[in-house]
């Protein structure tokens, strides 16, 4: 029952919470662009100079994504002991530096207390979950060697089963407590993200990213509509019936 909730229901609940939270933050954001720009400034103040945490988290995220997207390549890479050691050391190093970055960020949170109680509480909750995720992940790397190898035969199929909508709970239920804690807290961290002051930053970032990504499409649709306008204007019978007067 508990396992079913933690690894069958909770991942989907976390995604729903994340989407609902983001939607709520998006709808709650005040109107025009200037105010939208102001909101994240608060977060920018708080999260500036956290390059260590950001780079470490990015590295960890990319490592996890590699295991998810290309498990065979990861296994092939790990088939050489030296490459395996390098990958594990890199992963563990990234985990440690992320924990270092987390410490700096938390210290800034403790010192800076000009935000609302709600914001501070949400940030503290998020940071606690982030710590749990990072700490359990780093400890897993120490206590259960070669996570990059066994992870892609247990955790990757589990995540794929989640995406398929048929969670294979067995794949994760038999793993040690620390690994299960890591999985659970990762989803919890994801769910809590919109409630923090990072939520609006994420929305603005997402919007900019989408604009950037979709800009070629935008150019194409604009050009198509211009061409359609010209063609429509030429074929408009009104021009022949009522020619424009000079």
């Amino acid at each position, binding site marked *: 029952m508990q396992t079913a909730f933690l690894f069958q229901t909770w991942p989907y609940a976390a995604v729903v919470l994340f989407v609902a939270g983001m939607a709520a933050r998006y709808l709650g954001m005040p109107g025009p662009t200037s105010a939208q720009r102001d909101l994240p400034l608060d977060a920018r103040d708080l999260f500036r100079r956290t390059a260590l945490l950001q780079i470490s988290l990015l590295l960890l995220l990319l490592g996890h994504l590699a295991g*998810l*997207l*290309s*498990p*065979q390549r990861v*296994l092939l890479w790990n*088939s050489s*002991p030296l490459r395996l050691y390098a990958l594990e050391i890199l992963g563990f190093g990234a985990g440690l530096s992320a924990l270092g970055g987390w410490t700096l960020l938390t210290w800034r949170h403790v010192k800076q207390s000009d935000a609302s109680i709600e914001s501070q509480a949400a940030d503290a909750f998020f940071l606690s979950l982030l710590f749990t995720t990072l700490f359990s992940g780093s400890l897993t790397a120490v*206590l*259960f*060697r*070669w*996570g990059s*190898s*066994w992870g*892609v*035969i*247990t955790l*990757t*199929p589990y*995540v*794929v089963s989640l*995406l*398929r909508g048929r969670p*294979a709970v*067995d*794949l994760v*239920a*038999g*793993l*040690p407590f620390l690994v299960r804690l890591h999985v659970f807290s990762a989803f919890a961290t994801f769910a809590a993200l919109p409630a923090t002051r990072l939520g609006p930053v994420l929305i603005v970032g997402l*919007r900019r990213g*989408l*604009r950037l990504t*979709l800009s070629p499409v*935008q150019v194409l649709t604009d050009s198509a509509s211009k061409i359609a306008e010209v063609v429509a204007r030429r074929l408009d019978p009104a021009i022949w019936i009522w020619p*424009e007067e000079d």
Partner: protein
Amino acid sequence: MSTHCETTVLDARSRVRTFAAEASLRKRLACVPLIAVWIFVIGRGPGLAAAPAVSVEAKAIFSKRCTVCHTFGKGVKVGPDLKGVTERRPREWLVRFIRTSSSVIQSGDPTATKLFRDFKQERMPDWSDLSSDQVSAILDYFASDGPLQKEPDERDASTATADEIEMGRQLFSGVTRLNQGGRSCKTCHAIRSGESAGGSLGPDLTGAYLKYRDAALTDFLRRPCIPREPESSASGYLTPQESFDLKAYMAKAGGLLIPSGPPTAQTAAAGQVNRSREEKVIDPSERAARETDKVAAGAAPVRPKVLKDEGSVKATPAASGFAVQVGAFEDEQKADELKKQLEKNYPNVTVQPFSADKTLYKVRIGQPDMETANRIAAELRKPDLKPFIVRLNGDD
């Protein structure tokens, strides 16, 4: 006037376009699920292993469904002995009876009615979920005396050749890939043999052979230790030969002395599995029992208890060198009885307690050299007794 109109129209169009862009942006957020779909498509994980051989499936079905009520060549259990059934009955009748025995009996079929009467009116379940091909495969399996065939992994590890042990090492470390696409043991386990370290998600397997012993380890190797892909999706994750090679490598790593070279007729004969020995000698720990499905519902937990102080243990005459281990018993009295029998023919027979999850009493014959130990082991080897050689260190 015309210019003014055009400007107004353009302003209006620009505003409309801004709103349209905002609306389309929101709509395009729907693209996000596409990323998830992409991850799903790209990250399907390791490919599934090839479909298992038909006989493997037939064997699995036989073990799971038939053996509850039938034997193969061992007489009547609940239902008739299935040996020779394909010669006694027409194939079409067998297919029909296996899938819908109730209907066949109700139809008044004379053979089915007689069977029903002879076997205390116990009705066989209708295995209607089995396809005709599956039933056909089971019948082929019976026709070839499949249940009587021993798999290579049922050989005793002491009969392994040097090549098989080396292959086991290569399979363990992943140098040679497993036939059905499974991951090497080293992904999660280590063996202390001076090579590059294995993973530590699972336990160190250096002493696994000595802990679980041959038959229990054979059973254990027939299924993946933890659910994982692709092994959990495939009906088999090791071929019987791979299983044997790995067992032999673990036995070697655990200190079991295995004579090198091809198996002789004697060792090959000794390699035949005998379950009666397992019943007498193998006492798996609770964990081993659970992992090999030896614990049934209602089994009482065992509390390990020290039966004798270390001080009262009889001293080992050979503190180093080799020993032929003839048996291991939970019951010290049985160990003493075997010791008395052996002492009639051999010197240096000892009973040594071994405390792990339970206390076991190992009956050993100490020997200074391996040749003598091998000779004694060969002399003692019988269908119900399979001695093996261990290297002694100071602790033994």
